[in-house]
């Protein structure tokens, strides 16, 4: 039984301009101890998906799913209190912006110990001891004196380490990292990623790594789902995805990797942007930006076609049409 099992999840927001479907019928499964990568551009619904799993969708959003289970418990039927007991304890999350994701008015010690107080019901001295251990674990020097620091006194990388310490404080079984390195310097990115993976291995927790960076996924994830405009367009093992991408969007993302464009004068890009609230095309959502789009792609919605190693949402997958991204 997978740890997280989601079928046909949709998240709809009611806005002034009408209903907007940010996530459109996606399936997601994560096994215990597995690393799943979710890749996609800005606006592809990655973050909304993770917020839906956490139960953090704002009031103007509606979450529907055919199945939404964590460790066999149906998330849709939990009361708010039961749900809160799960979030922050068994399912935890690290966000993109470490500088704004920590409360500027409280010390980092307070913010770490708060979870321990709420979920683990630890006493004051135990909380303090655990917080120091956690800061040590995430590689913060002089952890004891750092407890009384405020977020503005630490660098972005250090703050992200604090966020990670907070997230793993109650030994979660699933950690969702939403672009955890995007806001950081390149030199720090690698350190934070390594830290996340070390913790994942050491604790055997499942990790959903959300990113727009194919390179990050290549190094970390065992399985990858590629999202586009609220849909999963391709999902398969990381190795197969990198060697035999089926969806033209995946292919284009891979082409845009600098290390794959060696010898070319210009880095290939994908023209246009992810369609927004008012300009969703008919048929395949990727068709206006797709080099291989046919009439059928502009007319008919595309289901996810399963194949030997995964699934792709395309009538004319790359390997079959010969339009290999090379």
């Amino acid at each position, binding site marked *: 039984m997978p740890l997280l099992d989601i079928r046909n999840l949709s998240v709809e927001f009611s806005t002034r301009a009408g209903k907007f479907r940010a996530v459109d019928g996606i399936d997601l499964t994560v096994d215990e101890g597995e690393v799943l990568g979710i890749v996609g551009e800005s606006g592809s619904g990655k973050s909304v998906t993770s917020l839906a799993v*956490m139960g*953090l969708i704002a009031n103007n959003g509606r979450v529907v799913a055919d199945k939404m289970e964590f460790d066999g418990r149906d998330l849709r039927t939990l009361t708010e209190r039961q749900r*809160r*007991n*799960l*979030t*922050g*304890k068994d399912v*935890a*999350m690290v*966000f993109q*912006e470490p500088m*704004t*994701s*920590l*409360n*500027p*008015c*409280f010390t980092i010690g307070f913010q770490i110990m*708060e*979870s321990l107080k*709420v*979920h683990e019901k630890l006493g004051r001295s135990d909380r303090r001891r655990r917080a120091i251990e956690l800061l040590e674990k995430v590689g913060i020097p002089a952890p004891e004196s750092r407890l009384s620091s*405020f977020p*503005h*006194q630490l660098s972005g990388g250090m703050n992200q380490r604090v*966020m990670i310490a*907070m997230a793993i404080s109650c030994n979660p079984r699933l950690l969702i990292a939403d672009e955890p390195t995007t806001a950081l310097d390149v030199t720090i990115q690698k350190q934070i990623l390594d830290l996340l993976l070390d913790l994942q291995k050491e604790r055997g927790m499942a990790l959903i790594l959300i990113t727009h960076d194919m390179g990050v996924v290549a190094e970390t994830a065992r399985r990858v789902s590629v999202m586009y405009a609220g849909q999963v367009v391709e999902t398969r093992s990381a190795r197969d995805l990198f060697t035999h991408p089926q969806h033209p969007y995946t292919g284009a993302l891979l082409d845009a990797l600098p290390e794959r464009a060696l010898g070319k004068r210009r880095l290939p890009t994908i023209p246009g942007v992810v369609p927004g609230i008012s300009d969703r095309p008919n048929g395949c959502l990727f068709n206006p930006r797709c080099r291989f789009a046919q009439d059928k792609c502009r007319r008919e919605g595309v289901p996810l076609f399963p194949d030997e190693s995964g699934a792709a949402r395309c009538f004319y997958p790359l390997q079959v049409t010969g339009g290999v991204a090379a």
Partner: protein
Amino acid sequence: MFRFFLTRFSLIIPTFIGVTLLTFALIRLVPGDPVELMAGERGISPERHAELRAAMGLDKPLLVQYGDYILNVVQGDLGNSVVTRTPVLDEFMTLFPATIELSVCAILFAMIVGLPLGILAAVKRGSIFDHSLMGISLTGYSMPIFWWALLLILLFSVNLGWTPVSGRISVMYWVEPVTNFMLIDALLSDEEGAFSSALSHLILPAIVLGTVPLAVIARMTRSSMLEVLGEDYIRTARAKGLAPLRVVAQHALRNALIPVVTVIGLQVGVLFAGAILTETIFAWPGIGKWLIESVARRDYPVLQGGVLLVAAVIMIVNLLVDLTYGVLNPRIRHGGH
């Protein structure tokens, strides 16, 4: 911190000059002088009039009068009341506690009611409660204070007979002035019922005076809270699985209070301005009533000295408010680290 104080203090001097110059000039623009008013309808001979004016130094050129006044003020002498002959500072010190008592109760009332209402409106944004609260607070903000006072007196004092109309305490009680704060003095005295009498005298004036600050605080709290509730760290707090009450009352409120404290500090000026009307309506023996009477009597030293002292109090309070930022906001406390 030292720089901060230095800039703040350098602002005091122009403010001081502005306040003295304005009050000095404005009161002299009003027709009539203290001598005429003391003489009343009986009139006074022009010779005697001139003699008395000269005795008060009112015959000198205005610039010289102003210079003399400033020289005295700098030496700590605000002059004596033309009417009572007592030093202005002494009168101020006797009456000031009454105004403080009223203002503190008014701002406490405004905060105790305004903060929770503002928070609730932000949390229930767009609801009927939110809309009606914002409508009511706009009304409260725009309402003339004397009219509001008269309405409340009509309802609670005249029709219902719940509260007294004027004064600080019923004439049945005599309370030894220890602190000059009636609530405290009444509590200290042995007289039974004195405290509740003092309290019932205070309620209506405090509500009247607190209405404008209440409206301002409620609106400010709401907008500040709305902004904070959209911040990333609130999402983090919710992602920790904290109860909504804890997220709002602890993580959001602490941040939302920072601008609200500024606004509360700015209300001190509003309070003193309001106190002038409120004290006059409720016959509350404080600074406001004293200043109004000084205008009516053309008591130049009282008006000049009184306004100057009030201005000083407002500046001090605003300085204190700026200092409390540091308590609320660690980024200021540790600034520059």
